[in-house]
C-alpha cells in the first residue's frame, strides 16, 4: 500500500511541476503514435475498402492474413522491422534504426491491420441495395466510395480509436526499433518499463498514469466527436 501511495504522490508531483523530461516523453509519444496511426489510416482505409468491395481470387486469404495481423505481438513486428533496418538489412541505407521514425514505421505496421480489418468489416456490413442505390444516383467511382465511407464514418472512427489504442500502448516494437534512448526515442511505455526495472516505482506509476490519461483523453475526444455526430 505504502508503495502505491508513494508512487501516486510522486506522480502527482511530477505532473504538477511539469517535469521537462516527462513532458518531452509525453509529447514524443503523442507525436509518434499519432503519426503512425495517421499513416495506418492512409494505407488501411483504401485497402480495407478494396478488400470489402472487390471480388478477386485469394481475397479471403488476404482477409485472414489481415485478421491474423491484428493479433500480431508488437515485439514480433519490432523484431522484423529491426531486421530490415539494421545496417546490413534491406532498408539499412535509410539509417533510421533507433530513431523515432523507426518507431513510427513499426507502429504503423502494427496499426494497419487493425484499420484494414475494421474498415473492411464496416464496409461489408453496408447494405448491397444501398450501394446499388448510390450508383443509381449517378455516382462516379470516387463519389461511390466517398458516400459509402461517409455511411460508415462512425465505424471508421472506431478504427482510428482502436489503431491509436494499439500503438500508444505497445512497448515491444518501440523498444526494439527505438532503443529507448533518453531524450530522443524514449516514449511513455519504454520509459515505464525502464523505471520499473530500475525499481523507481514512483516515476513508473507517474508515467503509467500519464499514459493512461493520454490514451483516455484521445479516445474520449474521438468518442465525443463520434457520438455528437451520431446524434445529429
Amino acid at each position, binding site marked *: 500500500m505504502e508503495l502505491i501511495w508513494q508512487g501516486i504522490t510522486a506522480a502527482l508531483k511530477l505532473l504538477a511541476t511539469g517535469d521537462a523530461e516527462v513532458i518531452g516523453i509525453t509529447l514524443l509519444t503523442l507525436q509518434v503514435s499519432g503519426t503512425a496511426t495517421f499513416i495506418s489510416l492512409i494505407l488501411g482505409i483504401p485497402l480495407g475498402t478494396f478488400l470489402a468491395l472487390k471480388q478477386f481470387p485469394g481475397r479471403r486469404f488476404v482477409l485472414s492474413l489481415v485478421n491474423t495481423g491484428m493479433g500480431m505481438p508488437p515485439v514480433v513486428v519490432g523484431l522484423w522491422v529491426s531486421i530490415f533496418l539494421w545496417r546490413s538489412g534491406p532498408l539499412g541505407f535509410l539509417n533510421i534504426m533507433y530513431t523515432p521514425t523507426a518507431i513510427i514505421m513499426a507502429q504503423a505496421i502494427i496499426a494497419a491491420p487493425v484499420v484494414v480489418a475494421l474498415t473492411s468489416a464496416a464496409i461489408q456490413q453496408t*447494405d448491397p*441495395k*444501398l450501394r*446499388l*442505390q*448510390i*450508383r*443509381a*444516383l*449517378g*455516382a*462516379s467511382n470516387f*463519389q461511390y466510395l466517398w*458516400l459509402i465511407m*461517409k*455511411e460508415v464514418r462512425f465505424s471508421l472512427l472506431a478504427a482510428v480509436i482502436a489503431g491509436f489504442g494499439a500503438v500508444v500502448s505497445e512497448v515491444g516494437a518501440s523498444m526494439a526499433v527505438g532503443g529507448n534512448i533518453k531524450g530522443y526515442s524514449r516514449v511513455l511505455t519504454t520509459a515505464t518499463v525502464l523505471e520499473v526495472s530500475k525499481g523507481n516505482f514512483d516515476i513508473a506509476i507517474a508515467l503509467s498514469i500519464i499514459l493512461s490519461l493520454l490514451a483516455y483523453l484521445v479516445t474520449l475526444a474521438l468518442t465525443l466527436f463520434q457520438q455528437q455526430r451520431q446524434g*445529429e
Partner: protein
Amino acid sequence: MPTQIPIRSETLLKAENLSWVKKNKPILQGINFSLAPSEHVGLIGPNGSGKSSLLKILSFLETPTRGRLTFQGENIPRPIPLELRRKIAVVFQEPLLLDASVQDNVATGLKIRGLHREASRHRVQEWLERFGISHLSKQHARSLSGGEAQRASLARAFVLEPDIIFLDEPFSALDAPAKEALVADLASIFAKTQTTAVLISHDFNDILRLTERTVILLDGKVAAEGSPSELLHFPESHPIGKFMAHWQKA
C-alpha cells in the same frame, strides 16, 4: 387479340432481344422493350418473373448478357458513360436513404452532379413540397416513418428531373391512405411534368392510374403488352388471363 401497341417512331430507350444470365440461370430472355418520351409504362408479372432485373438493366445498373440497348437511337457504349447514367433515376422498393438529413438525402444526386448546396436548395425544397414532406427537411432520414421515407426517396429521384425515372414497387411500404395520397400526387406530377417513367407494381389500380401501357413479364419473357384494360381480356385458360385473374382478386 390486342397484344401489341404500335411503337411510336420517337423512342427514348429501346431494348432489342435482351437476355440476362446470372450464375448459369437465364433470368431474362429475348426481351424487346421500348419507351417513348413522356410515356408511362407499367411493368407487371408474378414474383420472380424478372421485373426488377429488367429494370436494373434498363437503368444501366446491370449489363445484359446479350442484346442491344439504345438510348435516343444511339448504341450504348460499354462501360456506360457517367453522363448517360446521370440521365436516369431509380426508386427501389425500400427507401434506401443515406445516414443524413432528409434535405441532404434529397440533394445527394444533385451534389453528385456538381450542384452545390446553395444552388440546389430551391429545387430540393420544391420537390420536398410536392411530396408533402417539406416540414421534415431537417429531420434525420433514419427517424422517418416508412411512408415518409418512401416520399423522401421519391423526392430524391424526381429532384434530378431525369430523362427517365424507374420506380420499383415504390408504394409497397405504405398503408392504404398514404398510398392513395402518394399515387394521386404522382399522377399529378406525371401530368404536370414531362417525366418518362417505368413503374413496377403489384397493384392493378396503380397501373391503371399511372400508366398508359403495360408490359407483362412471365418467366423472364415479355408475355404481352398493351393498355392496362386490354390485358384484362385474356381468357382464364391463358397464362396471362390466369395471372390477371389472381392479380385482380389480390
